[in-house]
């Protein structure tokens, strides 16, 4: 590792601009893995993905491959996805079920319990095994905690607890869960996975940014009016064309939407100007919610109107439509993104069909929105790679944000305060050794 692995260069990040090196420098990426991804609470899985004992999900926490399981005692365990013997990957699949809730390494047949303890070793007589049993155990992730079914982990032994870390952004997760008439959500209907040769922070900045939509997504807005074939009316009163047109809202409209930013880099932006949902399916949905909540609570739940929440650095949520998105940085110039549709349990099936159609519009690499964003990430990365010293600016409306009542700040839609806020958090993680 180079010099930068332990110290951050001065003059890299200012309050309203950063050097392009933050997107390209491998040493900075390594330091992010140690100090940001090695410390923050990172989303791992939703409980509905680990329904039964032995079910597992593999992912990465920073650069560490991990596997999350549900044990026979129904507890969630997260261990490094690496055999305690010779280090082979234990679970090569993205997800699956362990027979008898036991890890069996395919290399030498060592077996382990879900919590990481060694269960059996085929030729243990060659070791002083009983004394060294713990040396061979799978490495447990230091901290695992849940918020209403969302499983998070931190590679750091110390630090703020999960509730403190989430802060006001617990409301982002509440906004998904509260919409379920049964009081529970599930990740259903598979997921999208895309990959881009660009830095993960470009996605954070894009998703915080209301001013790009009308330019970046101009073509999908423009072609709506060229369609001569009839678009069938959807069951919840929002015409499909509206979903494509929404990105074309004028900047003056986007500026009316609020932006909110909080400690540790979290933020959210207000709802885009969409027509209200209505009709018999929405009426039935409302009736089902009213079986669980008072009318005024249902009003409150359905009135939450946010386009997108960012739980920094990797988790993004959209409550009204029901989408959870997770960024997985793989290299300075490679990021993988996974996007899940969320089913509000107890809601009419048509509502989930609407989620499936909506997530397709916004998150399929083959449709009408995401490919344009991916093209922009690619272009940003290509250009900045040539000049790591170049300044990247996000100063719009600096200083115009004001404190809100929830411990954060609020500003107008086109204020780039959320990007500045994310870099404040970034610097706070990066300047302090673990």
């Amino acid at each position, binding site marked *: 590792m180079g010099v930068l692995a332990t110290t951050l260069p001065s003059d890299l990040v200012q309050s309203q601009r950063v050097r392009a090196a933050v997107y390209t420098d491998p040493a900075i990426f390594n330091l992010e893995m140690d100090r940001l991804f090695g410390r923050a609470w990172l989303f791992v899985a939703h409980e509905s993905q680990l329904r039964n004992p032995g079910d597992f999900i593999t992912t990465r926490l920073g650069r560490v491959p991990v596997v999350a399981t549900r044990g026979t005692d129904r507890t969630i365990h997260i261990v490094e996805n690496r055999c305690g013997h010779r280090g082979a990957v234990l679970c090569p699949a993205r997800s699956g079920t362990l027979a008898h809730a036991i890890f069996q390494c395919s290399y030498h047949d060592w077996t382990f319990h879900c919590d990481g303890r060694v269960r059996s070793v085929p030729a243990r007589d060659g070791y002083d095994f009983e004394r060294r049993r713990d040396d061979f155990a799978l490495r447990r992730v230091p901290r695992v905690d849940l918020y209403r079914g969302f499983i998070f982990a931190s590679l750091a032994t110390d630090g703020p607890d999960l509730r403190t870390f989430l802060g006001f952004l617990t409301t982002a997760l509440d906004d998904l869960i509260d919409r379920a008439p049964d009081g529970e959500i599930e990740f*259903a*209907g*598979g*997921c*999208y*996975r*895309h*990959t*881009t*040769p660009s830095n993960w922070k470009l996605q954070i900045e894009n998703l915080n940014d209301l001013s790009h939509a009308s330019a*970046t997504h*101009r*073509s*999908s807005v*423009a*072609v*709506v009016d*060229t*369609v*001569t*074939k*009839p*678009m*069938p009316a959807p069951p919840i009163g929002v015409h*499909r064309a509206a979903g*494509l047109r929404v990105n074309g809202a004028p900047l003056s409209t986007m500026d009316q939407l609020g932006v909110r930013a909080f400690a540790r880099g979290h933020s959210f932006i207000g709802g885009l100007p969409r027509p209200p949902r209505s009709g018999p399916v929405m009426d039935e949905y409302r009736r089902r919610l009213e079986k669980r909540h008072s009318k005024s609570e249902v009003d409150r739940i359905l009135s939450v109107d946010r386009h997108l929440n960012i739980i920094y650095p990797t988790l993004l949520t959209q409550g009204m439509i029901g989408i959870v998105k997770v960024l997985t940085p793989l290299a300075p110039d490679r990021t*993988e*993104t996974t996007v899940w*549709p969320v089913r509000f349990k107890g809601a009419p*099936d048509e509502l*989930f*069909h609407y989620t*499936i159609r909506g*997530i*397709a519009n916004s998150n*399929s*690499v*083959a*449709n*009408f929105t*995401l*490919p*344009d964003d*991916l*093209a*922009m990430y690619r272009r940003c990365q290509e250009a900045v790679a040539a000049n790591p010293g170049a300044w990247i600016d996000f100063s719009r409306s600096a200083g115009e944000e004001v404190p809100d009542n929830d411990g954060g700040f609020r500003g107008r839609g086109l204020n780039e305060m959320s990007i500045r806020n994310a870099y404040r958090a970034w610097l706070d993680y990066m300047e302090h050794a673990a």
Partner: protein
Amino acid sequence: MTSAVAQSAEKRFDRPTIEDYLFHEAELLDSGRWSEWFNLFTDDAYYWVPAHPGQKDPYNEVSLIYDDIATLQVRVNRMNHPAHHANQPAVLGAHHISNVRLLSAINGECRVASRLLMVDRRGDALRIFSARVEHSLRLFEGRIRIAWKKVELLGAEGPHEELVIPF
């Protein structure tokens, strides 16, 4: 459709005719004749690229593409738009069709299975996609039209970069 018409339709659905039709479709896609490709589809058609192997359902599971005729029109009309950024510079494609099999022909409609190898050139890079494709073809006003098309991509679950050229 009367049985006489259906019979004559089924006679039209022999393998040389079907193969010519699929090769013609490939030619339209490879030469960027998007409107002509769009006109191959019936008004009740759908074009489906599932996002998971063995996916049964486009309503309860995510798909890479699930277009009805209106959404397909959005797709083709966007191909020529100068602000389709993922298509700037224009992505080029080459569709190779093989293993054509007529699965069934009944009531003036036939189902055809084929294999697709598509190569695209995006920027300086070539990519290869492989798929099992199923067409449902229908005789309509004396012409063969596509009633539905399903593309089962190898590695449909991704991760993918931008996909621009229709399969």
